């Protein structure tokens, strides 16, 4: 296994946001965390990415203990695409990529190549010299992903990368993630849109109130829900008695 998460728990003060999340991501796999708003997806991602250090449970990378908050080497294996845009609006797209690339240790021609490639893949090459402030929301989202993937990490953590995006940009983002998948890169993808999970993910973990309540391929989940033709929306309804789009 590339990544194993076992009994992950995290509390904001008194409030338990993640209470015993376990799942695995295999090499080259796209694993989806599907759940309504407030289910604990972002919190899980932040523990994995190394933003939080006070989580409990176990995380392993290729069988070894994984401590991204403490170890630079561990963090560098990951790419993080935050749910909220995290860009310097006063810099151009290229400058943003160059800056974060340098912080990831890229330099010289390697940096230039990585930046050009990222701009091309994101379809941002012709606006690369403009300040990000002047870009559309969809373009910013694509840059947000490009920055997370710039150093070609072993596993890309994508936290709801399509939230608030127009359909056209959404398709673009989808194509981009599909390319990653075809390259054999591993992806951990969170969303509250079940169509996205169904379309993109090899396996899906359904998360609800801080717990994984079901995990498997779409087909396995449907079978477990007692109806082989059920989609993920129906699975979720069967498991929780609620609709996915209900606020958590």
């Amino acid at each position, binding site marked *: 296994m590339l990544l194993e998460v076992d009994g992950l728990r995290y509390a904001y003060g008194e409030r338990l946001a993640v209470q015993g999340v376990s799942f695995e991501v295999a090499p080259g796999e796209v694993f989806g965390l599907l759940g309504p708003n407030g289910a604990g997806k972002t919190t899980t991602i932040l523990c994995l990415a190394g933003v*939080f250090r006070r989580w409990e449970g176990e995380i392993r990378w290729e069988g070894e203990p994984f401590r991204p908050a403490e170890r630079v080497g561990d*963090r560098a294996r990951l790419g993080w695409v*935050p749910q909220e845009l995290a*860009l310097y609006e006063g810099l151009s797209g290229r400058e943003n990529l160059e800056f974060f690339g340098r912080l990831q240790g890229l330099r010289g021609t390697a940096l230039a190549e990585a930046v050009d490639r990222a701009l091309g893949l994101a379809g941002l090459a012709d606006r690369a010299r403009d300040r990000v402030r002047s870009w559309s929301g969809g373009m910013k989202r694509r840059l947000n992903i490009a*920055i997370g993937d710039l150093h070609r990490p072993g596993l890309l953590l994508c936290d709801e990368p399509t939230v608030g995006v127009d359909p056209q940009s959404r398709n673009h983002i989808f194509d981009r993630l599909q390319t990653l998948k075809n390259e054999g890169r591993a992806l951990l993808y969170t969303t509250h849109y079940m169509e996205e999970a169904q379309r993109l993910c090899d396996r899906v973990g359904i998360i609800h109130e801080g717990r994984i309540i079901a995990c498997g391929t779409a087909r396995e989940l449907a079978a477990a829900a007692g109806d082989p033709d059920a989609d993920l929306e129906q699975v979720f309804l069967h498991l929780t008695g609620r609709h996915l789009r209900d606020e958590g």
Partner: protein
Amino acid sequence: MIRAAWILAAKDLRLFFRDRTALLFAFLLPVAIVLAFGFIMSGVFGEQGSMGRVSLLLVDRDGREASTGLTDALERTGMVRLRLRPGGRPWTVEEARRQVEDGEAHHALVIEEGFAEALVSGELPPLRLIRDPGRAMEDRIVRAALLQAMMELTQGGLWVPVMRRSLADLGMDPEGIETVTRFLRGIQETLGAFLGARRAEGAAGGAEEAPGGGGSFLEGDFLALVPVEMEDHAPPDRPKEATFMLIHNIAGMGVMMLMFGLAAAGRTLLEERDQGTLRRLLLSRAPRESVLLGKFFSTFLTGLVQLAVVFVVGEMVFRVDLFRDPLTLGVLVLSTCLAVTAFGLLLGTWCRTTRQADGLGTLLILVMSALGGAWMPLGQFALPPAVELASKCTLTYWAVGGIESHLWNSQGLDHPVIQTAILVQLAFAVAASLLARSLFHRRFLSG
């Protein structure tokens, strides 16, 4: 229309009064500024609330009762505070000179030998003023006080010897001067009799009598008539065009604007947190402390450029040779930038929101500028000890004081005043940086 406006206004007020930070600074800031200013102004302008007392060193070489008469009269003017040496012994001329040269004192009055005799004989009494030229405001106050005191001491008779000297300066022969003197003495006696009668009348009628009434009508250009020999001490390399207020304002405003600039730079730490980029930085390969160190560098460099611009433009406009000792100025600028950078970062790590940082930053900068003498040149007034202590507890005091002492008194790196200013600022820089670092760990890296 009006109803809708009221609904909108009520919403604004509700939001405003719920925002504790905004509330705190809307009311705390003005109160703190008023208090700080009130505190400093009561220190400067004293109880009477009219004019600040200027501190004046006294060297009494005559040492007779007449000297005491003069010093009492000077104190009664309410314009100067005589400074004796701790222990009460008077200063020597040499000490007074050194104090003026060091910028510790700005004016020293020497009562020369023969002062008492001259008063009796109606000659011009020998007085000397050792002073730092260019401190125009203090100079006028000291000389006005001196004129008023001398007029009081001689009961208005002073102007006869003053006139004699003026006529001699104009080249009148001694005989002519004697004629005029006899004439003047006649006027003086007549006038004295008249004023004496008036005074008695006034006393009988219960009317108030201003002290030193004989001389109080002499103002303005009459100050030039003050019967005193001037002895100016200024550092030889200080340009004649430099006035103290100019140097003071360059230092004071420069430091205050630097603080505003670097508080804004320190605040970007909170901005980056809010816009999410801080997390990206913390998740990169860069060591986490380098994020804070990077802010330190950028803030510090911003400060250096800012001060450099102030001095270069100041020099281009005023031409007062600000760069005559670039090494000392450079070290002062470096230590001030280090200290103010640490202040900015402390603000950015201490505060929880950008609004809080703005409010607290403005509050601290304005209060420190008022207390530390960035606006009012506090050094020229005799301050009560409590005010002086409060002043010395501000970063502004040392930052402005260091630059001012260097540019005005031409004190270099070998001078204790400059060394102290540098050391205090460096100590603050180290302490505040360490505190900012520990806050950074606690507030930004744990979770």
